[in-house]
């Protein structure tokens, strides 16, 4: 049995639920949704853990791609250099689950790792290049 952690990005026109249940039914891959950020009519993202035979996972992932789902290898963690952070907020613009926030009253960047889906989008978005991924 193999395990794989992936970040799935669903364009608004792809309905996410059937796609995932299909993986279970047709490819015999156990699909655990670890975190998800999905709202109707918007791009959605989820962190999933797939469990099953290596071959079947591969076939299932191929199928997801054909359906228009963007599939990326999940990172294991992000690292933020808080010392140098200027709390500009540029990284919060791409953080759909709002794990990164700058808000009143202190307007200081906060990172809530429990909300993070490990998509890694904040890495490119930080103008000071202070966020690094760990694979």
């Amino acid at each position, binding site marked *: 049995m193999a395990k794989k952690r992936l970040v799935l990005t669903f364009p608004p026109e792809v309905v996410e639920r059937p796609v995932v249940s299909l993986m279970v039914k047709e490819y015999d891959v156990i699909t655990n949704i670890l975190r998800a950020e999905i709202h109707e009519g918007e791009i959605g993202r989820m962190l999933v853990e797939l469990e099953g035979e290596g071959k079947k996972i591969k076939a299932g992932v191929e199928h997801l791609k054909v359906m228009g789902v963007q599939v990326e290898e999940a990172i294991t963690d992000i690292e933020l250099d808080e010392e140098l952070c200027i709390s500009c907020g540029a990284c919060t613009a791409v953080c759909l689950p709002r794990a990164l926030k700058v808000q009143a009253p202190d307007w200081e960047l906060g990172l809530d790792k429990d909300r993070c889906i490990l998509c890694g989008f904040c890495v490119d978005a930080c103008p*000071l290049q202070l966020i690094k991924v760990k694979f």
Partner: protein
Amino acid sequence: MAKTYQEINQRISRGEAVVLTAEEMTELVKSDGAKKAAARVDVVTTGTFGPMCSSGAFVNFGHSEPPIKMSKVWLNDVPVCADLAAVDVYIGATAMSDTEGMAYGGAHVIQDLIEGKRVKLRSTAYGTDCYPLREIETWVDKDTINQAYLFNPRNSYQNYACATNSSDRTIYTYMGVLLPNFGNATYCSAGQLSPLLNDPLYRTIGLGTRIFLGGAAGYVAWEGTQHKPTVERSPGGTPVGPAASLALIGDLKQMDSRFIRGARFHRYGVSLYVGVGIPIPILDEEMAAYTGVADADIVTSIFDYSQQSRSRDPLGRIDYERLRSGSIKIGEKKVPTAPLSSYKVARRIAQTLKAWITESKFALTEPLQPLPSEGTVLPLDVRTEEGI
């Protein structure tokens, strides 16, 4: 009763001046009214810390032995403009490294110099009778460089756009990463703390105004490029989009990288976060009312950055209180918002400047000449020589 610059400066030098940050002034004007606030307060300090691409630094390296008339110059592999006298250069903030691309650029060189780091200087020249040397490679830092001062042609924009993206792909802009289908909206102004939004009609900010620039004292040198005072305004006088701007000057050697920072916007390029704070003298009730402005009163326009045109139609208008709340509505859609300019550092700048003035370390200057209050921006059209 009206006050003069001289009276305010006398109070500053005696350590008696009453100084508030723009945020504190907004509270005071709300509770006590502009008239009472004008009687109580001498100076209001403002602050902003955002990416300002139109920035850079003039450097004079001092002369080598034998001397060189530098014609091509690199600092840490970043090309800088050397089309001036022999050892004068201008480091443009947005210049990109020949070896690292946009991950490191002129803005980062400026930050490294401010932080006292060693920077590699490389130059080639054609050689002349008076400047025979044709090549030099050496190391410099801010203490070995003869002179270095920032001269930023366009900083401290009076208000800025709110950016969003209607297209179906992610776009990478100087307003950050904009997600498809109105996936987010970014904004870039310190709002009620921002210098030119507290003096919306430029009564006190003008040529020669002494300011906080990157952690040191600097000056307003000129109107900024694309200075555009003739615009639509809200009832309080603040413009509903980008309007005035300032050209600023200050000594790089005195600066502090907490208030000035190199940046790169992914797939866009390099920029410089510049910390600017301007003191505003509360000469009378009108200035108290202006500095009492709140985020809720300041409105900006929302633009679709997927439209690749110099004149985009605004999608709507929104005030900074809503932008700061974390989401806005565009049409029927709820769109999350994110700032690009640091409110936290803007606040620290206003507080630092307040401390300098309160401790009699910083006096105000009366502008030598006001900023132009009329005029607009000319576009660049492709035309023939006869067609001009």
